[in-house]
């Protein structure tokens, strides 16, 4: 692997955006992107979980490889992610109860956010070293936050406009996501 840290960051942030180009983490993307003030914290929380999960997964992978236990990789990754989410939940509950309530069911659902497990699986598959893994996780999280914030801003505007009844809801969100994804294709090849 000869990718530099900067290349990985730009790639995961824009050209291979987790949500818009790789279809990871669509459930919270469609679920929480209704309002801007919940979208941003959700992005930050997910980024944090990603970082913790990526660090743990890196260490764990070394351990599993050393003992030839690769078949346990998936199970142990998911347990690590669940614990990281629990940690974030406790921190938020203590320091920001309002935000904790606003995020509601979507907070525990970070566990089943495929973007988080995706970070852990992709960094293993691409054999990233320690620095690369960390940059990959942060870039992925930042890309997720960016997509979420963009989407939330557009949807807030849309509430004021006249949309045919039939298109309300998920269908409209998907069309929007398609247009966003189309514009993100313009970044292709940016990271080299």
């Amino acid at each position, binding site marked *: 692997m000869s990718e530099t840290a900067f290349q990985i960051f730009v790639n995961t942030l824009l050209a291979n955006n987790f949500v818009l180009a790789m279809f990871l983490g669509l459930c919270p993307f469609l679920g929480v992107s209704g309002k801007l003030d919940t979208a941003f914290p959700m992005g930050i929380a997910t980024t944090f979980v990603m970082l913790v999960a990526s660090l743990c997964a890196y260490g764990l992978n070394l351990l599993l490889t050393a003992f030839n236990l690769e078949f346990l990789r*998936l199970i142990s990754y998911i347990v690590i992610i*669940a614990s990281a989410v629990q940690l974030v939940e406790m921190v938020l509950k203590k320091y920001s109860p309002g935000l904790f309530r606003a995020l509601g069911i979507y907070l525990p659902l970070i566990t089943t*956010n495929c973007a988080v497990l995706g970070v852990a699986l992709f960094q293993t598959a691409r054999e990233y070293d320690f620095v690369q893994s960390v940059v990959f996780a942060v870039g992925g999280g930042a890309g997720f936050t960016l997509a979420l914030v963009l989407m939330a801003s557009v949807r807030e505007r849309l509430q004021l406009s006249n949309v045919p009844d039939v298109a309300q809801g998920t269908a409209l969100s998907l069309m929007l*996501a398609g*247009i966003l994804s189309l514009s993100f*294709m313009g970044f292709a090849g940016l990271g080299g």
Partner: protein
Amino acid sequence: MNVTTTRGWDEFMEGVWRQNPVFVMALGMCPMLAVTVSGVNALSMGVATIFVLVCSCALVSLMRGITPKEVRIAVYIVIIATFVTVVDYAIQAISLALYDALGAFIQLIVVNCIILGRAEAHASKNPPLPAMINAAGMGIGFTIGLLALGTVREILGAGTLFGVSLFGAGFQPWVIMLLPPGGFFVLGAWLLLFSWWARRNAGKPVKEAAENV
């Protein structure tokens, strides 16, 4: 006997049609959009998901008496992850080309919300047989969704269906349909169609009543 078969059929059709995970509940979007660039990929993803869904629902249902309430989600996740590992290695052994095409999305079946949702909402409260029937229904409903997306994208994007060329050499492929935006657009269009259909059916009596007044 007749009553039980009807109930079983109801249980089964709930997932296939009334509560279709893709079109009605909008669950499991990630694998949905990512792997549906061709009919074959869509079908194999569907089969893999059905296997994991049915097996884990059966096991969750069998263990429903001895699972402590506080750690139930963790138990479900570990059960699901176990079956996904099985599927992962099985596909790797059967067809390496397919394994490469589906990539990390086989392992990502673990975090498919449909499976965890079924385990929590249905299998944890019902005996194994109804749980398995319900799971199979849901899985088939999901596969129908996958196929609806995969075939449309393959026909428009490559001019083929399950690898068979449809339009001959003169066809100019609509490549955007195979790229990420195409997935969003096709799924959006399907949802639009379904909501129009639901609205048309639901709107009928109201409209007649209004005309009578």
